[in-house]
């Protein structure tokens, strides 16, 4: 996470904190998580970052629902702004995981394409009948020799 992004978060949380008691309670709950998330947001600890988000998002979602139920539209908007970003960050974290896995697909695809080409060539041979006829005739010639029909 960039410094700019972190300062953006700080500003959002500060705004939440200044709103009312609900926000203050929410802030108490989230502040520890936020600092934990900030520490883990660096790419080397993607799993830790996602785990922090997994802990944080339900709390923020609950606060959002509480504000919405109370018809506190301003607070709802503020929380939603933070909450959406948290969801987007979790999607981003999963995207990094998907991208890493996706790299491994290239080698597997090369192996599959080779196997498919082998099959398709074999099928073409069978369609032309060359392979079968050769096999069949070898069989028949062997048989003929075995039974003395052919020297």
């Amino acid at each position, binding site marked *: 996470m960039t410094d700019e992004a972190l300062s953006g978060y700080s500003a959002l949380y500060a705004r939440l904190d200044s709103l009312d008691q609900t926000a203050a309670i929410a802030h108490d709950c989230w502040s520890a998580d936020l600092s934990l998330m900030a520490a883990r947001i660096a790419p080397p600890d993607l799993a830790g970052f996602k785990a922090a988000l997994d802990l944080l998002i339900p709390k923020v979602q609950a606060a959002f629902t509480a504000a919405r139920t109370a018809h506190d539209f301003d607070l709802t908007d503020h929380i939603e702004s933070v909450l959406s970003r948290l969801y987007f960050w979790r999607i981003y974290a999963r995207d990094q995981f998907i991208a890493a896995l*996706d790299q491994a697909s290239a080698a597997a*695809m090369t192996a599959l394409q080779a196997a498919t080409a082998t099959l398709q060539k*074999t099928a073409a041979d069978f369609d032309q009948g060359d392979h079968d006829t050769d096999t*069949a005739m070898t069989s028949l010639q062997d*048989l003929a020799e075995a039974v003395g029909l052919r020297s």
Partner: protein
Amino acid sequence: MRLNARNAIICALIIALAGCATLPQREATAFKTIASADADSFGKATASDLRSRTEAAVIQSAATGISVETMNCDQSTAPAGTMIDKTQCEVKMTGVGTPPLALVEGAPRTRKLIKAVATYAAAMADLAEAKDVAAAKANVDAAEKSIETLFTISGVAAPAAGFTKAIAAIAKGRMTKARRNALLAAAREADPAIKVAADQLTEISKSIKGNVLDSAAVRLNRYQSALDRATETGKRLQAKYSALPARAGRADARDQLRVMIDGEQARRVDAGNALVRTAVDIRLARGMETDFSGLAKAHTALINALDKPEVGMTSAFDGINSFLDAVSSAKGD
């Protein structure tokens, strides 16, 4: 002696025909069906992910500072005489405190991989199934003719009844073996890739499912807020409208309020429809396929069937040996 030999031939024929290997068509077809369904399922998942996350991004209110931008798509920014790499043109979500979320369909290599699995499965089924049956049958017929000619040329008396049929059965068995060997070799070559594909699809699909649900949660929150706000605003406007005396000189104010009330009602309808659409997406995402282990299992079953010595071929070749013994006896060797 000849009668015994003929009985032996008939027995051998029965053994050869009964044992005449049937290729594992059932396993090949099952694998093809699973691979094709998995390719469809995975394609739908990545498309659903893109559609949902794009909607989640574009519905953010201007106040959040989140925006959607194209990156490296404008050719006019490239140095004269050069082209921007086509892969660099992207749509991204940007904003303070916001990840640079790509609004493109994910897992491009894995999408190609599962399509390659489906192509491979189709090629496997083609070879195991009906495509070359006609050719195989023609070859068997040709083999029958060949052996009849062989008998004629060699000056040996016409073969016993069923003799050419028995030889044809052997020839068919040999052809089946050749096909079986080709299938088995290809299947063994492809097996590690199939296992990788099954694991990849499983792991990536779990993440895609999570992403669809998260972007749907963003949408749900936005539309619920919009619905709540429109409802509350509509109520307040309606109260004002009702309180405004319907008398001369207030018509303009009442009309203005009426327009505003209608506007809020339209917002409610839009938000309600969007909520329902999002709920449908959530239900679909919850049912999304995330276990692709069946693909690897189906392929293992196919290899086992191809490799199983007791299925088809062995008994067919036992039959050939019996048959050769019987023919030798018939010739008085």
